[in-house]
């Protein structure tokens, strides 16, 4: 009988290869169709849906926009976002704490991407897990509300590393919570040197021009 010979073989294989392949395919499709894909990541309750609702409402005047929104449960966010008149699909992840590229691909089924200018993807509220998954987006915005504390970037450096722009939300509340702009800018620069930082209020519209400018620039 032949005895088994134990040996060590060298391989080089990304654990998320499958996700990355789908993400690369999505990126190519978005590019080919001329659609700008923007994803939003943040902790729960920092105002992703409010920012998106306002963004969709403003953009639908002159652009063709659609959104995918991820949550563990409920269609609530999709229902809210549909008030903007933009097509919206909810991705219900069940117990999964993040979106992956396959979920995005499946949710896009039947949509004609070439008929869109912008596609927004709102991730599940979570500052940890979404950082591992490329969704094929061109721009990833990480949101941080003024009520969360200026040290969030120091506590969650990985999500800031994975994003392209930081958006401070609920700036209308900044005076009430004595929000320290210098500290937040310093903390973001400490974990991600050179990252652009915007401040917006979905309620008052403050800073929206900068946000719109960011969406058209990238």
């Amino acid at each position: 009988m032949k005895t088994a010979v134990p040996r060590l073989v060298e391989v080089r294989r990304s654990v998320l290869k499958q996700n990355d392949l789908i993400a690369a395919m999505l990126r190519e499709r978005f590019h080919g169709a001329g659609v700008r894909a923007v994803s939003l990541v943040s902790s729960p309750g920092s105002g992703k849906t409010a920012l998106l609702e306002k963004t969709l409402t403003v953009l639908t005047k002159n652009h063709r926009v659609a959104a995918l929104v991820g949550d563990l449960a409920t269609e609530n966010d999709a229902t809210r976002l549909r008030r903007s008149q933009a097509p919206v699909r909810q991705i219900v992840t069940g117990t999964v704490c993040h979106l992956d590229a396959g979920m995005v691909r499946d949710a896009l089924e039947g949509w004609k991407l070439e008929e869109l200018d912008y596609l927004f993807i709102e991730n599940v509220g979570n500052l940890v897990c979404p950082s591992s998954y490329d969704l094929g987006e061109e721009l990833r915005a990480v949101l941080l509300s003024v009520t969360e504390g200026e040290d969030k970037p120091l506590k969650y450096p990985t999500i800031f590393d994975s994003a392209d722009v930081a958006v401070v939300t609920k700036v209308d509340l900044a005076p009430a919570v004595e929000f320290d702009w210098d500290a937040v800018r310093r903390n973001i620069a400490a974990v991600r040197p050179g990252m652009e930082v915007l401040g917006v209020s979905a309620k008052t519209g403050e800073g929206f021009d900068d946000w719109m400018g960011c969406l058209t620039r990238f």
Partner: protein
Amino acid sequence: MHELSIAISLVEAAEEEAAKHGAASVSAVHLRLGPLSGVAKEALLFSYDLATEGTALAGSRLLIEDAPVEVFCTSCGERRPIRSLQAFSCAACGTPATEIVQGRELEVVGLEIDS
């Protein structure tokens, strides 16, 4: 925590690679893990046994090699470590670092197999 999802992807990746090398069984999987991958080492180790249950990798060990963050420092003109994730700058000269050359790894680099 998404390490169970990651562990399941890891098992699928390792099984595919093992099959390519004609492995009869796998006794260990070597993984390189960087802190910017967003994956926690302890949670991944914890999830590994669950994820391998009932697969060709059941009973195998997961050996994790750290891939600390390294950047290309434009001031030093060299590859350097950083001060910390909370001070993303060259450990040698303090220049803010933007060019990451290592630290995002989440990859299988070796398999101990019987064939």
